């Protein structure tokens, strides 16, 4: 039932499904709902690493030398362990520079060199062609074998089959058509292919499941498990020798070499770069891939050795190619369905590789090889053509066809002499030549364009001489003597024993020589000169991760009028306008026309174009319309230095401005305080003047009366003189208090601190006021005085406070019915004194106001309905004094229910420190002019709120 047409039909059905998936993914992407923006899809698409080499070739390799197939998968595992250092950085650099291929990366890193881009492209194409041939060979062989079911017939040598009967030719043609349909339907400025990635992820699943199915069938269907196969193999000496490896240093050396070779390949193969870097949607997806991709590799290798051993045990030696065991074992046991599934799995592996590889290569060929050449050929007039986007697609289509054609040619010429894996390794060794320039370029700023060219050329030449040419020689296309006796018969030039180096397998031999020469030339030539301006700029972008968004290589400028048409020629008008509009919006401009013709615009246009035609060509194109002022190295260095200095400065500035903000706030507060004080000072002066004028006016009035009228009788005269004396007393008291307050506030007051009995002071103060109390018939109650309360204070000052408070109370209580009560009590830490009266009380709002100077004279409080007599300084002075001794003075009152003035003073014991401080302060106060104010006059009082 497995006739040719069934297989062909199944194959086309499968390809059709893939195409459907790709179409659907593209459709979703156009609507902004990407299918592939998913870490699992990313990890699966990385499975494009596993080609028919893995699917068919690993078993062949295992049949030949046991575990030797494994290093190819251990290397990528190790690469992903380094993801944080290499892949992460590569993706970031590629995204910010719109790098679309490995050639673009190298060209861009070393100063956007077209030469370098072209060189990398040539090496990649030549190097990867054997790998593509491998896929063609595997698919056409599997087709031939499967279609001769139920017989198991090995395909005839390709050279023996007439060209048009060779299935590999048709496979190549079909794959070319399929790839062109897949990858070049439209031009994307970012070179991303969502549909392709989705299809690749599906293919990864198909080939894994197919291989696991064969493995399970062989291990459990044909044998009693893994242990059974190994036990049987151990019994056959010819097979058993695959279970261990040669224990020689050369064997371990080549094992280690393969690990690192595959590590580089998984990073640098054009298709790996395409999937891992260019098609990466979000750099965060790398996280999942770090373990999921190695796990994929682990699973697909799980049954390789058991299947190889089973094949060796089942088929007589030499009758069946070990590369086909995966297919021939199910066929030999009449598993038609499984065999067809295996064929589809192999087809998956091949199509995945060919599609991604040729798309990546065609991008490189177009952007880095053909376009730069065409643009140089002035007679083609391309530079003047209005729309080149169609041409770009055309070039890519042709590139795909040509690359597959070359692959087929290599298959016809050299494909027969090698097993699948050996062909693949030739390609691996070729792309390994990119390792020094790429990894060096990411970590070393000193690499120059010349060094990169020298390294690549040296490595490529030695690779071709030691690996590619011998593969032609072995197939008979070059004389055999070339391998055996060297070029021109010179033994030292034998390609696989260069300079007499023996004991290595051909891959290790090639890598030792080519990478030595490559690295040596790269570093050596780079060190010949200092990087030029453009190289230095790119180096700092790649190595330092410097963001030069503000600084560009474009010294000159060009307007939208020049750059938009330029971009439109390569991208198509619609896409170009869309891009420019996005750029305008990102700069908060409404339309494209508002964009200024500055260096930033030129830079944007260059990056936009880089996506379509590669960074080197994009540079050349933009340079053709922008009047570029070449930057000298010094200038670039200055820019970089400036950038870092500016960063340092800006940090400093930020700090300074924060400090400044703080200082400004403090200053503003201080200023407000000063204004307030100033205002208060003004108020104070006007109040003082007013207060002084009142007694002065009455003194003057009575003095004039006495002076002008000598006939005033004695009684009258005595009364006038008494008023004059009383007013003079009041005047001098006022002046004394002002002086006293000024002294207190300026800290120049004189203090005599000693232990003072509070009760005694209170009594003394009351005694001095007895006459006034009696005069107004107010009762003074001093029953609550606890004896023996001592504090450290200035006796006279304390007296002053008491007199103030008592006369204050006396002032506001009604005559005849007025009562004033004084109490003093002590706690462990302080002494508390209360002066209570039954006057009208004070509004809560005025509890603090009354301690302000002259508040009764400021007119600010409308609660005053009656201007009381007094200086308005008693309470502020009292408060100053109490606070000087670390006590507090306040009032407790509600309007209409009397007032109670309370002050506390710290007890003598336990407050020695404070008092000692007070004493020191008093000494610092210096000699003061006035002694303690003896304010025993009866009339003074502080301002009291409330209506009196």
């Amino acid at each position, binding site marked *: 039932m497995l006739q040719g047409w069934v297989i062909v039909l199944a194959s086309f059905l499968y390809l059709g499904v893939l195409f459907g998936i790709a179409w659907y993914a593209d459709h979703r992407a156009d609507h902004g709902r990407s299918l592939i923006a998913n870490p699992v899809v990313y990890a699966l698409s990385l499975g494009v690493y596993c080609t028919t080499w893995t699917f068919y070739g690993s078993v062949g390799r295992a049949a030949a030398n046991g575990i030797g197939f494994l290093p190819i998968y251990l290397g990528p595992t*190790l690469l992903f362990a380094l993801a944080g250092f290499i892949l992460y950085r590569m993706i970031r650099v590629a995204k910010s520079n719109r790098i679309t291929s490995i050639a673009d990366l190298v060209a861009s890193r070393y100063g956007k060199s077209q030469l370098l881009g072209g060189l990398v492209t040539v090496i990649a194409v030549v190097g990867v062609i054997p790998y593509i041939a491998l896929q063609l060979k595997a698919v056409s062989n599997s087709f031939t074998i499967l279609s001769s079911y139920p017989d198991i017939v090995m395909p005839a040598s390709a050279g023996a089959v007439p060209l048009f009967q060779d299935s590999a030719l048709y496979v190549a043609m079909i794959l070319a058509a399929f790839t062109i349909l897949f990858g070049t339907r439209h031009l994307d400025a970012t070179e991303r292919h969502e549909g392709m990635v989705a299809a690749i992820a599906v293919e990864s699943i198909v080939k894994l499941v197919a291989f696991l199915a064969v493995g399970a069938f062989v291990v459990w269907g044909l044998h009693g498990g893994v*242990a059974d196969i*190994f036990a049987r193999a151990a019994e056959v000496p010819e097979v058993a020798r695959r279970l261990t490896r040669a224990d020689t240093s050369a064997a371990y050396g080549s094992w280690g070499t393969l690990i690192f070779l595959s590590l580089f390949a998984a990073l640098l193969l054009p298709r790996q770069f395409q999937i891992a870097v260019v098609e990466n949607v979000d750099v965060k997806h790398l996280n999942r891939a770090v373990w999921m991709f*190695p796990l994929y590799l682990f699973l697909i290798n799980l049954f390789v050795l058991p299947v190889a051993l089973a094949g060796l045990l089942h088929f007589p030696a030499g009758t069946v190619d070990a590369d086909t065991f995966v297919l021939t074992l199910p066929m030999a046991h009449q598993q038609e369905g499984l065999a067809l599934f295996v064929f589809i799995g192999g087809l998956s592996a091949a199509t995945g590789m060919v599609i991604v590889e040729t798309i990546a290569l065609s991008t490189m060929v177009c952007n880095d090889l053909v376009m730069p050449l065409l643009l140089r050929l002035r007679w083609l007039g391309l530079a003047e053509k209005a729309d080149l986007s169609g041409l770009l697609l055309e070039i890519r289509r042709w590139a795909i066809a040509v690359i597959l054609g070359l692959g087929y040619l290599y298959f016809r010429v050299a494909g027969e002499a090698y097993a699948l894996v050996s062909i693949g390794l030739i390609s691996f060794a070729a792309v390994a030549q990119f390792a020094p320039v790429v990894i060096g370029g990411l970590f070393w700023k000193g690499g120059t364009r010349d060094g990169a060219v020298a390294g690549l050329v040296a490595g490529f030449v030695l690779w071709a001489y030691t690996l590619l040419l011998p593969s032609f020689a072995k197939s008979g296309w070059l004389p055999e003597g070339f391998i055996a006796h060297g070029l021109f018969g010179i033994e030292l030039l034998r390609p696989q024993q260069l300079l007499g180096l023996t004991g290595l397998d051909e891959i290790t031999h090639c890598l030792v020589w080519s990478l030595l020469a490559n690295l040596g030339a790269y570093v050596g030539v780079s060190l010949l000169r200092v990087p030029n301006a453009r190289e230095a700029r790119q180096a700092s972008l790649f190595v330092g991760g410097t963001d030069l968004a503000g600084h560009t290589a474009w010294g000159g400028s060009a307007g939208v009028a020049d750059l938009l048409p330029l971009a439109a020629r390569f991208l198509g008008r619609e896409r170009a306008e869309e891009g420019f509009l996005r750029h305008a919006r990102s700069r908060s401009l409404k339309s494209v026309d508002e964009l200024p013709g500055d260096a930033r615009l030129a830079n944007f246009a260059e990056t936009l174009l880089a996506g379509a035609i590669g960074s080197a060509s994009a540079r050349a194109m933009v340079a053709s319309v922008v009047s570029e002022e070449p930057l000298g190295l010094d200038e670039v260095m200055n820019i970089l230095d400036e950038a870092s200095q500016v960063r340092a400065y800006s940090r400093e500035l930020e700090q300074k401005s924060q400090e400044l903000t703080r200082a400004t706030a403090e200053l503003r507060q201080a200023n407000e305080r000063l204004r307030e004080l100033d205002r208060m000072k003004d108020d104070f002066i006007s109040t003082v003047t007013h207060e002084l004028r009142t007694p002065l006016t009455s003194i003057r009035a009575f003095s004039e009366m006495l002076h002008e009228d000598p006939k005033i009788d004695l009684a009258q005269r005595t009364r006038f003189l008494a008023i004059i004396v009383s007013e003079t007393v009041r005047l001098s008291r006022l002046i004394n208090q002002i002086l006293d307050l000024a002294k207190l506030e300026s800290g120049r007051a004189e203090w005599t601190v000693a232990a003072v009995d509070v009760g005694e002071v209170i009594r003394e103060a009351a005694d001095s006021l007895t006459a006034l109390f009696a005069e107004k018939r107010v009762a003074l109650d001093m029953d609550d005085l606890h004896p023996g309360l001592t504090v450290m204070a200035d006796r006279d000052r304390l007296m002053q406070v008491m007199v103030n408070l008592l006369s204050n109370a006396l002032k506001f209580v009604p005559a005849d019915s007025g009562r004033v009560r004084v109490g003093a009590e002590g706690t462990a830490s302080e002494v508390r004194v209360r002066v209570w009266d039954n006057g009208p009380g004070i509004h809560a709002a005025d509890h603090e106001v009354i301690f302000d100077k002259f508040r009764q004279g400021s007119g600010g409080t409308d609660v005053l309905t009656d201007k009381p007599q007094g200086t308005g300084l008693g309470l502020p002075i009292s408060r100053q004094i109490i606070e000087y001794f670390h006590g507090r003075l306040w009032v407790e009152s509600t309007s209409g229910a009397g007032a109670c003035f309370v002050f506390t003073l710290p007890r003598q014991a336990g407050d020695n420190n404070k008092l000692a401080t007070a004493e020191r302060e008093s000494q610092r106060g210096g000699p003061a002019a006035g002694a303690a104010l003896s304010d025993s006059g009866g009339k003074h009082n502080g301002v009291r709120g409330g209506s009196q």
Partner: protein
Amino acid sequence: MIRTRLVAQRLAFLFLLGCLFFNYPLLSVFNQGGSLFGMPPLYAWLMASWLVLIALLALVVERKHD
């Protein structure tokens, strides 16, 4: 997150561990006849250490709180 230095350094450590697992001299220790869990010792060692390495990689990158 691969971005943090610590995670990147842990991964780099696993890279070195992998280099040790998959190369001489550990390989030569297992490169002998006989059988380990029904498998040739070399094969058993490589597959087991590979799986362990993958598990460690997963552990390092998927750990949420760090």
